[in-house]
């Protein structure tokens, strides 16, 4: 894109913000709105990144920036029957459903009084407890990229989940973000805020899907503050249609002896950027970051993680796997910082990729910045094809070439899926994977 086109796109978001403000009415006087405006001003002061920017070297934003996305949906939710295919059957769970960014109460299932968890929509919390939200925003790492700034500028709807100290949440939480067709191509700015108290346990899954193959854009920010000795299972499923765009930032700040198990599964999207920024803010923290991306056609999936070992005795294990077919492209960038204070850090990172076609490509890049001397850090990346010996072996037992190839691909992906602790989610993803592998 030319500089003029980029300037036009920025102006477009500026005009959208003006329209957004007009619709807020009374909300414009709140302190949160000052935060929004400040964010918009910072957005105006920077440019969208190009390939010259180190962090965007392998991901071109051109396909995304070609669209003028509109910010408001005319669609009022979806009928429960349209939501049903995405719902976890037979598994008791809590659920918040959003359609085109708006909360759809009829398809949500909220905890009743006395439940070990509080789940609210951001819209409600902004009215009830704006100060709490502001405090949390300030406690998280500051982001400087244009998309996070836009998300904050348009902060309005999303999920706020609070787990009090010592509470083990009895049911997993399913946050369902559905996109339905609208007269215009829409952008949504969901914000998920998760505050987990000391010694609390919770499982949260964010699931993004589109009900038809229309163009849309999801710009999502998730912020997670994990208390001491808490355990969090976190899942991000990107299953939006192959014409859609998604840019997501997940910030996780962990306190002493807490554990986070994160799994990202990307199946959809024309262009997906998934960035997890993990801060090990105290000692004896353990985190696992797992990822799986399956791309085909013209899909592009960019996964990056920034793991910040700030304190001693931190353990992080990271495994991202990619399966790329067609003309699709993938990027993995795993950065690990070990600060001078973070002695006895144990960080392990792997990224393994299988290319199913001659035209698929992947760029994988580990980045280790180690400033402590008594640490154990390993990283490894592989890019390969289906193992021909294994393929032949399976064929000599009677499986045809396609079945054998699918079985091997499925097995490669299975290593990530089998680690998911929510059976309903694991089964749904297994079924999606089987669908995908049968072309």
């Amino acid at each position, binding site marked *: 894109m030319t500089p003029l086109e980029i300037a036009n796109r920025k102006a477009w978001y500026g005009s959208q913000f003006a329209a957004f403000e007009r619709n807020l009415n009374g909300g414009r006087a709140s302190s949160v709105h000052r935060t929004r405006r400040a964010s918009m001003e910072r957005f105006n002061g920077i440019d969208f990144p190009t390939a010259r920017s180190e962090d965007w070297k392998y991901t071109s934003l051109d396909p995304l920036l070609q669209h003028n996305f509109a910010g408001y949906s005319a669609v009022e939710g979806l009928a429960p029957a349209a939501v049903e295919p995405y719902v976890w059957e037979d598994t008791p769970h809590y659920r918040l459903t959003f359609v085109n960014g708006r909360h759809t109460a009829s398809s949500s299932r909220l905890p009743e009084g006395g439940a070990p968890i509080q789940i609210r929509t951001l819209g409600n919390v902004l009215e009830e407890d704006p100060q709490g939200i502001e405090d949390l925003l300030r406690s998280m790492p500051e982001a400087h990229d244009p998309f996070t700034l836009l998300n904050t500028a348009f902060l309005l709807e999303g999920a706020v989940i609070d787990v009090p100290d010592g509470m083990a949440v009895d049911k997993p939480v399913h946050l369902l973000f559905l996109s339905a067709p609208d007269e215009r191509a829409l952008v949504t700015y969901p914000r998920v805020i998760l505050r987990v108290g000391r010694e609390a346990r919770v499982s949260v899954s964010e699931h993004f899907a589109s009900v038809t193959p229309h163009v849309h854009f999801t710009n999502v920010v998730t912020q997670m503050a994990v208390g001491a000795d808490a355990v969090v299972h976190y899942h991000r499923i990107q299953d939006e249609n192959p014409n859609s765009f998604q840019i997501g930032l997940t910030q996780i700040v962990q306190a002493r002896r807490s554990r986070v198990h994160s799994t990202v599964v990307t199946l959809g999207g024309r262009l997906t950027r998934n960035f997890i920024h993990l801060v090990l803010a105290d000692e004896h923290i353990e985190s696992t970051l797992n990822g799986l991306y399956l791309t085909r056609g013209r899909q592009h999936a960019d996964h990056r993680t920034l793991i910040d070992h700030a304190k001693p005795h931190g353990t992080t294990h990271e495994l991202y796997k990619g399966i790329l077919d067609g003309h699709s492209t993938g990027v993995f960038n795993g950065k690990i910082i070990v600060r001078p204070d973070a002695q006895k850090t144990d960080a392990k990172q792997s990224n393994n990729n299988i290319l199913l076609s001659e035209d698929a490509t992947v760029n994988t890049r580990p980045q280790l910045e180690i400033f402590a001397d008594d640490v154990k850090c390993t990283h490894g990346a592989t890019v390969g094809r289906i*193992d021909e010996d294994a393929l*032949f072996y*399976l064929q000599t037992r*009677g*499986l045809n070439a396609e079945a054998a190839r699918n079985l091997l691909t499925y097995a*490669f992906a299975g290593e990530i899926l089998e680690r998911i602790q929510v059976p309903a989610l694991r089964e749904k993803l297994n079924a999606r994977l089987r669908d995908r592998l049968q072309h």
Partner: protein
Amino acid sequence: MLEIRNLHASIDGHEILSGIDLTVRRGEVHAIMGPNGSGKSTLAHVLAGRPEYVVSQGEVSFDGRNLLDMTPDVRACEGVFLAFQYPVEIPGVNNTYFLKAALNAIRKYHGEEELDAMDFLQLVRERMKLVEMDEELLKRSVNEGFSGGEKKRNEIFQMAVLNPRLAILDETDSGLDIDALRIVARGVNTLRSADNAILVVTHYQRLLNHIIPDHVHVLVDGRIVKSGGKELALELEEKGYDWTRETAAAPV
């Protein structure tokens, strides 16, 4: 059952098999012996359909049908089974799941109904006993982390479940201690019948003490230079392969 006529095969432009003729009838056990590099394993893999090998001349028919025209999976469905010298480790593919998929693919090929989980499990339990295999191995990924002996037993176990008409055992004795060798051989002997045939490819005679062949062929430089009965194996053990080389070179 198996007719090989003037078979020539090469890999990366190097000819390995230079005119093999061999006839195997139903109910027979044939041993193919020969020194390292003589082409024994190549013959086994060409029969199974390994794509890296190019057949430049000759014919192979299996029950009157052209075997060389079939993909490896069709050969398997028709009843050809290769027990690998080096069974492949396949992480993430469960042994039981794999075997069930294979068995049902073969059944489907023959227009038979797929076995349900119960019937399959019963069959598997029964066949495991043949090779005294630990049931734990069924729950693991195919061959992953198996010892050399466990891998070889797993091959014969698969053979027992899939029940092929022609089993090709490629150096099944290599890497086996004497106890494991006995177990594997007993498994093979139990599967011997008047309807199927076995091709035993081996460097050493010792396996043939346990699996007694009807015919022994000596392969040298890609050709069968000598054929005989089971006593030929003993003669080879005594005199070494150089002896066959000399006889082969001698004018007839």
